[in-house]
């Protein structure tokens, strides 16, 4: 294990970019689980699904980022439909087993998506081509892959746009409020169910772009959905449920930690980092860094 300050610095740098990426893929979950309190374990599965959709558009020659943007509206609609279904089936009926059933439902969706992807695309990895994938920016002795820079850039943009939307627009603020005080919202004339619907639609729409970023960062395979359950929930819990800006910070922490572990112990231990960090946070400070 050759340890040098240079290697460490490079790992940290890579970790920062990786962290931004992790924040981007967790934004949708931050809304769906952090704000709306939906046990949305299927979020990473939809993310991977989005990545594969980007791949398909890529085979037609469409640039991945453009593909992500094109996929956002249909994914937004998908989100609305999904929430509607979830609401009618689980939230409305209530009952003791609603929580178990909601969770079982979403895990069922995870299985179906993962196996569906295996049946459609096989277990081998799929990737995309783009001018910014494959080459690196060289600064002095350090090489920063362009694809990571792109991912980080998109991630930053997404986070800023979403945070602004949630704090500046009426619907956005209603979304932030609906998790905490439905009653007050109703008094203001807003329909909580419609607000949650839009929120979930946004969460899924963001996922489309995040999926594009996922396949830009590296080739994808169907089993990634379970790995990303660890990463996305780690980020959302570490940030603190309901904190958008916290998502960026938490993403950075995870990215840097994973990058350093990758450097020191190798790739097989990297998945354990996100899950381990998640368990640690839940044990020591379950409300996360910025949670309410």
């Amino acid at each position, binding site marked *: 294990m050759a340890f040098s300050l240079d290697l460490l610095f490079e790992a940290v740098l890579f970790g920062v970019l990786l962290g931004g990426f992790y924040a981007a893929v967790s934004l949708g979950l931050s809304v769906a689980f952090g704000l709306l309190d939906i046990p949305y374990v299927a979020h990473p599965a939809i993310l991977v699904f989005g990545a594969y959709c980007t791949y398909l558009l890529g085979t037609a020659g469409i640039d991945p980022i453009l593909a992500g943007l094109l996929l956002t509206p249909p994914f937004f609609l998908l989100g609305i439909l999904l929430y509607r279904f979830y609401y009618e089936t689980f939230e409305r009926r209530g009952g*003791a087993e609603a*929580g178990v059933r909601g969770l079982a439902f979403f895990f*069922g969706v995870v299985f*179906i998506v993962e196996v569906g992807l295996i049946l459609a695309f096989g277990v081998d990895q799929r990737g995309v081509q783009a001018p910014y994938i494959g080459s690196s920016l060289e600064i002095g002795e350090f090489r920063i892959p362009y694809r990571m820079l792109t991912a980080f850039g998109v991630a930053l943009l997404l986070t800023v746009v979403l945070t602004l939307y949630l704090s500046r627009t009426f619907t956005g603020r209603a979304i932030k409020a609906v998790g905490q005080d439905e009653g007050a919202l109703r008094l203001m004339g807003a329909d909580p169910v419609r607000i949650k619907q839009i929120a979930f639609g946004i969460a899924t729409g963001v996922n489309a772009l995040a999926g594009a970023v996922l396949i830009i960062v590296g080739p994808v395979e169907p089993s990634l959905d379970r790995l990303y359950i660890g990463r996305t929930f780690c980020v959302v819990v570490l940030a603190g449920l309901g904190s958008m800006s916290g998502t960026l910070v938490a993403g950075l922490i995870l990215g840097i930690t994973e990058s350093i572990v990758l450097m020191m112990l190798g790739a097989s231990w990297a*998945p*354990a980092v996100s*899950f381990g960090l*998640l*368990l640690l946070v839940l044990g020591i400070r379950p409300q996360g860094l910025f949670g309410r």
Partner: protein
Amino acid sequence: MPLSNTRFWTGAGIVLAALVAMAFSGINEYVFFAGFVVLQFVVLASAWNILGGYAGYVNFGVPAFVATGAYAALVMFKGLGAPLVVQIVFGAFVAGVLGLLVGLLTLRLRGIFFSIATVAVIFILETVVLNWRFVGGASGLQLSRPGPSLGFESYTRMLFAVMAVMAVAAVGISRYLQHSHVGQGLRALRDSEEAAECSGVPTLRLKLIACTVSGALLGAGGAPMPMYLSFIEPASSFNLSYAVSTLAMPIIGGLGHWAGPVIGALLLGSLQQIVTVTISSELNVLVVGVLLVVFVVIAPEGILGLVKSWKRSSK
């Protein structure tokens, strides 16, 4: 509605005797090969239901507990040449400890975090196994199993009989728990954890008991796997199919009652065995996944629930 103890154990005894007698008969070997899997699912589904159905905490890391049982059994066999019974007991023990640890870490928190922690355990365990040469690492291990004992014609027949005993035991344990003081408390905490606490129910303690027993039974169900396959490897041990099926069976059969997992396991397990010859294992998982979602949405009380409401409406 509850079956009296004598009725249940008489019935169970008859079933067990029949299964064991089968194992001594001249029936085609393949029946026992397939039957082992169905019986194993009875064990796994019953085990899952103790935590999932009775307490309402959903374990998505079933492959981790099953693999723990399998690998622990392997260690006993390879390291000490231990007989099958010892392997199973040790597998159950280690998996039970794992259940207790995961429970201690996460059962104080909301249900979803427990579930995610169980997913975490899969990854962590898989990493450990992959890096452990003694149990074969990534490429796995071939085993030569000893000859069958107790007068059975083949090792597979013996495993079938052993699994039959375990299935009856698992169902018996889950039935006992359901009707016990602990079962009453679990049901209360599943319906409302806060109200249960305020009614004097030590919710954390009960959840830990359920988690430990459930984990131990899952491990027991997985322990005979190395002997069954004469082979062990991470890819098949940590497979998705166990996760989906063990979840689907109690949900389809009926949560919260000991008979639900049995119905689900027998139905789904047999179906899978018949159909596996014709379709791929991925399609199998897809179908089970879809069935799971369909039942969760349309018939949340499972087949038992459907029977109950059909009985009620025909009165």
